[in-house]
């Protein structure tokens, strides 16, 4: 039966399969839920069980659709277009730079971590002039940092660079 499934369909089977597994996780988590002693009319288990059942059935439904040869059409793609392999390299760079941003944000402050992710995403999308890009990244995130912190009173993590620039401007840091 699997031989009928296209390359794209196999990816979708894995996708629906993992959602099927998630529904099992919800069942398991709900089953071992700690319920307080006080008498409540509706258990906090009822609703999660319903949700898990719907997810379970829907994921099985999608698996059946794919096995019948009706794999999904990706968004914005005409059904007749040939299957294109995802560009994992570009995606990887982006996921990596966002991950780095999350890791660095409260360690290096906003400007550096956001500049790194800006640089990474722009590089992944084909910006080639590294030095210019680096400069633009830093200027952009500095502007963002100061417009949000000074004009909008939104707190963002600060570190050496932020302190240094604030020092240049006198007492407004």
């Amino acid at each position, binding site marked *: 039966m699997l031989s009928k499934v296209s390359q794209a369909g196999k990816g979708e089977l894995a996708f629906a399969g993992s959602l099927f597994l998630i529904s099992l996780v919800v069942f398991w988590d709900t089953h071992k839920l700690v319920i307080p002693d006080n008498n409540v009319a509706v258990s906090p288990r009822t*609703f999660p069980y319903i949700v898990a059942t719907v997810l379970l059935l829907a994921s099985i439904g999608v698996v059946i659709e794919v096995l019948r040869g009706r794999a999904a059409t990706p968004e914005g793609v005409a059904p007749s277009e040939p299957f294109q392999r995802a560009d994992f390299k570009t995606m990887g760079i982006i996921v990596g730079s966002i991950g780095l941003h999350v890791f660095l944000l409260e360690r290096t402050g906003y400007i550096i971590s956001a500049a790194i992710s*800006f640089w990474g995403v722009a590089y992944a*999308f084909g910006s080639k002039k590294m030095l210019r890009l680096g400069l633009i990244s830093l200027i952009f995130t500095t502007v963002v940092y100061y417009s949000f912190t000074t004009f909008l009173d939104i707190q963002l993590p600060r570190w050496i660079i932020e302190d240094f620039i604030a020092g240049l401007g006198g007492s407004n840091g």
Partner: protein
Amino acid sequence: MGNFDYLLTGFESALASGNLIYGFIGVFLGTLVGVLPGIGPALAIGLLLPITLTVQPTQALIMFAAIYYGAMYGGSTTSILLNTPGESGSVITAVEGNKMARAGKAGAALATAAIGSFVAGTLATLLLAVAAPQLAEFAIQVQPAGFLALIITAFFTVGTLLGSSRIRGVLALSVGLVVGLIGADLQTGSIRLTFGNNNAIDGIETVTVIVALFALGEILYLASRFKHSEWQVTPVSGRAMMNKKEWKRSWKPWLRGTAIGFPLGVIPAGGSEVPTFLSYATEKKLAKGENKEEFGKGAIEGVAGPEAANNANAAGALVPLLALGLPTSATAAVVLVAFQSYNIQPGPLLFVTNPNLVWALIASLFIGNTLLLVLNLPFIKFWIKLLYIPRPYLYAGITTFALLGGYALNSSIFDLQMALVVGFIGYLFRRFGVPITPMVIGAILGPLAELYYKRTIQISQGDHSVLFDGLLTKSLYTFLLLLIVLPPLYRLIKRGKQNSTK
């Protein structure tokens, strides 16, 4: 005080100089963000949410009303001039609009879209001002069981009407419901699906979910198809104006679009795809002679109708949001979050407890709409420049703002980690043809559905039959049953007929 007096007071409050400036800022930011390719109205408001954290509620909501309409205007510009439309409601506009632009009639297409949006927006806001208080008055008597029925109806209409496949809509909905489960149960405090992570006890921040799904998911999806995509901006020659003939061909589609768009926004039909498509189909059918032949090659009716429907739909979606507290589109869901961040709960009581705020909001919808017409058409050349931002910078900028929006609301690294996870889910959804909106609706309305369910059963002391009590619940569930049963039945009958004629 009658509603009309309230509306006048609303205008007074919205036009107060301190407040009007927020309307201006909102219109400007909304258009700015809306024009940027890849950013639709839901994401635009989500990204701008942190900005309103430090502003007074009335001023923030005035700003939101302006952003809401501004993002829609901006979106239509993009879909006319770019061969890849930014958001779902503009897909149909792009069909004829981009063809018109390529035939050198970009100015007329932009004008009919902008003026049509203004006409439809004004009429629909008027309808909103009439309908919402009435609906709210009715809804005050609705029992929890009735609200539960309304939410379940919204779940299924949003889930099944969107996207190419119903089963994938239901899949998206249930993933959203799972996200909504995460954290402490409101009544018993039982901790669900946190796997021991204390950060998750309060649940996953809704804004994070929305921003990550729409921004990071889209960026990842664009990255995955990076090598295969292209985009071209069609240049605009001359001014954004229409000649007499184009006016004549536009005004009826505007009105018809409004008539189609508004009601479909009020009932939970799930976003703007359905009404814009219906409007397009209507215009194509009604067109005669040489106008009909232009369809597919750049017919102005095909821009005027769907654009009007799109805007009227957006206003219509505010009716259930304000009167019932139920968002029926992703954009309305973000507006709901904006209300909630000020501890204001939209719903039947809103018109009683916060009349000044609601009416200021409605008045600023009128004002915002007018500001947009003034701001957009004459300055169209400025907005178009935004389309020429190099793609790497554009995408990097969207990512930066999305990450900022994900973090700033709670200053939480955990929120950011969740944003990355949800963004990847958003990518997978796009890749496998699963619609996004049902997931947003599920995540927001899921906890509400559980609450109403528990209230109903608590009042009845465990008797489940009360779930179907009353005319409202009965008719809603009957409607749902028909919605689920009829299409397969219809297909079966059709197939039977085909077989018999063979």
